[in-house]
């Protein structure tokens, strides 16, 4: 069974059906295993061996369609992992003491990664849709 948000993608991008199918399968599998999982475009691309440009585009479109919710991760510029995370970059302070490396970091947009969480409506649909 297909998910509504991905049906919408298919209607907008009839030329990218194979990529959308792989993306749908991976998102569906991931969220069935763990409804709190974070969807990362890099991991989707590696797992599905699909076009990274299209994957990014479709994930952002799924946010616009309210199937996914974006989550901003402020990464430690020393490469120590995530310093802080928020729903919106406005929630980040301009300067932060990094819990990873102990140094102070100034906000820079280049240090922020956007990843995705499922919306409640997408999770609900996954729960009620039979697998396969």
């Amino acid at each position, binding site marked *: 069974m297909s998910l509504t948000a991905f049906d919408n993608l298919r209607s907008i991008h009839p030329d990218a059906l194979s990529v959308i199918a792989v993306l749908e399968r991976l998102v569906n599998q991931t969220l069935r295993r763990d409804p709190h999982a974070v969807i990362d*475009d*890099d991991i989707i691309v590696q797992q599905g061996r699909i076009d990274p440009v299209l994957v*990014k*585009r479709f*994930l*952002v*479109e799924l*946010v*616009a369609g309210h199937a996914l919710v*974006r989550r*901003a991760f402020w990464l430690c510029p020393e490469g120590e992992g995530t310093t802080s995370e928020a729903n*919106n*970059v*406005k929630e*980040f*302070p*301009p*300067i932060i003491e990094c819990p990873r490396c102990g140094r102070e970091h*100034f*906000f*820079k*947009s*280049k240090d*922020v*990664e*956007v990843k995705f969480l499922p919306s409640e409506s997408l999770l609900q649909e996954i729960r009620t849709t039979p697998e396969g």
Partner: protein
Amino acid sequence: MRLDEYNRIAEELPDGLPDYRGAVLSVHGMNTWGPWQKHISPVLQDYSIRHIPVDYGYQILRVIRPLTNRLLQLVVEKIVDAFKAHQHLGLPTAAIGHSFGTLSIGTALQWTPELVLPRIVTFGSILPCEFPWRRLMERGQVSRVLNETCQRDGWPRRARLWISGAGPSGCDGFTREPFIDQEEYEWTDHSRLATEMHCRRVWIPFILGVPRNCA
């Protein structure tokens, strides 16, 4: 994906949801195309501040009275368009104006009550010293102004001779108000404040409403 990449894609979508800390429109002066606006763009992008540089071309004669008002109409329209483009994304818009750009921003606020620019930076300002900021604040259009002045800057004093509605606030400051920060610089003349470093150290903290050592 990187935040910049996400925002670029989201802005291409009719109902995309880009994620910014704030937004700025900037307006250059006469006798220039405003290269400083292009210089500060990457700095603003570093802080995830969306920037629209308002460009009305290289103008000399059209600035001078009796043509001033006709040019102002054109620039005001562009300012309002830039404001609406930010507003469409739900972003409160700050403004940075230089020289004729300050007169344009001030005029835009007076002519367009729905234009709301909570934080405004002016440098080399040619607005009159008694510009009615208080009235604009009471109308909810402005909440804080940073006016950067230099006594050595001769242009604001000369501007009132040729340009309708101009005054020397870029030298002498505005009438004192608690919501107007006036900062005097000794050697910056008319245009030398518009550097990347000044933008990073002074304008961005002012726009974001954070202390200067926090950005």
